[in-house]
């Protein structure tokens, strides 16, 4: 090893898995390297920093880098997912994984937290005392199932139930029901879940019941990041269950929003959001061009189950 060891270990799990914290700390102590989970302990010499904080990782001056990859942590299923802090956990967990992917892309070493041992740069083989058995049996129902592997592979998918999305009510950002009375002014009726998606083409398939109650429900669906979205206006005159498919190219990672707008003031109509399936279609990201090319966007609908 030439020069001091300046190692940043970024954990995709919050908090970092205790057995790995202990194992890395022990390995550092054996090698007479300072170990800490706080960047302020860095004195400029040999130093190993273990963190799960994206902002710390983003600003760290440490040059050697590794990512301790673990399956997305279990979201506390004993709490209603509609609670804001649970949604926040999902957002933050996705941001950690998106950042981890960026680190791996830039040459960081990948460490599998589910393995019996890993090789840390400068510290050699690190073996925790006991194998971690807390990992999730990943199912597509997990909101972060797209991150079963880092980086996500083509075909990776997750299903976000309605509870993962946000439903404004009155002046509140969230807290409304997934069954929505469309009566009212033009407004956003659904948004979220602000999960970070990595570069690639991501497909959303939203299952939604729409009942125009004898009129025409005119809804705008958007899929993207902030104002950078693929959008489509959809007019429904027949009640039924519809699947709305939108594809979008992410050139840079960002927190996704699925948004549904009532695009004009309406007197009647109801919708009920059921779920949104998210699938990685392609990881081919074209090189930036001087003039942005038209968005890759498709929009298809199909009546699946007519209402009785």
């Amino acid at each position, binding site marked *: 090893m030439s020069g001091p060891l300046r190692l940043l270990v970024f954990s995709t799990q919050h908090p970092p898995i205790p057995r790995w914290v202990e194992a890395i700390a022990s390995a550092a102590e054996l090698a007479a390297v300072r170990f800490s989970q706080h960047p302020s302990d860095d004195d400029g010499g040999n130093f190993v920093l273990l963190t799960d904080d994206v902002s710390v990782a983003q600003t760290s001056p440490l040059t050697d880098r590794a990512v301790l990859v673990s399956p997305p942590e279990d979201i506390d299923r004993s709490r209603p997912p509609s609670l804001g802090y649970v949604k926040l956990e999902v957002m933050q967990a996705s941001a950690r994984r998106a950042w981890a992917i960026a680190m791996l892309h830039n040459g960081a070493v990948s460490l599998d937290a589910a393995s019996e041992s890993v090789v840390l740069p400068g510290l050699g083989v690190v073996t925790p005392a006991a194998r971690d058995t807390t990992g999730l049996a990943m199912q597509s129902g997990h909101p972060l199932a797209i991150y079963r592997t880092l980086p996500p592979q083509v075909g990776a998918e997750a299903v976000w139930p309605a509870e993962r999305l946000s439903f404004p009510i009155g002046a509140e950002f969230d807290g409304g029901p997934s069954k929505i009375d469309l009566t009212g002014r033009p407004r956003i009726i659904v948004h979220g879940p602000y999960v970070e998606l990595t570069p690639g083409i991501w497909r959303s398939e939203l299952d939604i019941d729409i009942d125009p109650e004898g009129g025409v429900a005119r809804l705008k669906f958007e899929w993207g990041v902030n104002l950078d979205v693929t959008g489509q206006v959809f007019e429904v005159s027949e009640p039924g269950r519809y699947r709305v498919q939108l594809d979008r190219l992410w050139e840079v990672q960002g927190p996704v929003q699925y948004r549904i707008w009532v695009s004009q*003031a309406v*007197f009647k109509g109801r919708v009920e959001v059921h779920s949104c399936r998210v699938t990685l279609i392609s990881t081919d990201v074209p090189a930036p061009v001087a003039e942005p090319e038209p968005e890759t966007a498709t929009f298809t609908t199909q009546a699946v189950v007519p209402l009785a």
Partner: protein
Amino acid sequence: MDSGTAVTDAADVTQLPMSAADRGSGGLRVENLSKTYHGTNKALFTDMNFEVERGGRFAILGRNGQGKSTLIKMLGGILGPTTGRIKWEMTQSWPIGFGGGFQGSMSGLDNIRFLARLYDKDFDDLLERVDSFAELGSSLKLPVKIYSSGMRARLAFGLSLAIEFDCYLIDELVAVGDARFQRKCTEEIFEKRGERAFIMATHSTDMVLAFCDRAMIIESGTAKIFDDVAEAVDIYTWLRAA
């Protein structure tokens, strides 16, 4: 002052005793109201429910043919409900702007005399108050049936404003009379009687925004209440444009 006698022959419209001492704090309560005209199978509206409290300023919005004027007439006791109840706990005017409440073969003076007796008012006082507003002069001696629609409206307005009511029923205020008369009506109803309730069926969103604190939209047989009047106007504007 108020006799409390309902100007209605509809059994489903309940006018409670209205001596000042008897008046409760209630206003108007409409329960499960529907209206289907004879000869049609389709209800004009169904399952309508709303309340108007004393001093409330309630707008009824709706495109032509949705039942605004019918509802005003039902509230005024001129038309009966098909089902449901209209329960008044305050005195209400007949529909202002509605000229059908007069006996056509009688003169304006005779109609004033009739209403003075009905509402237990002094005829001379009532005549002075009516004519100072309606400005019909010697035309009051003529049979009402030969009045123009504007003259009938002025007489109706004059009588409505000469007899003090807790709640004024207004059907399309802007549709009758010239601009000066409309200004006069607006001043009398919305400014001089600012503490009174009114229920106004109208297409005029400006008036709704200026004077009303709640609104109801009737559309395709369904009625919805909006506490946010501006929201109701937004929706109604889109309905009209559709």
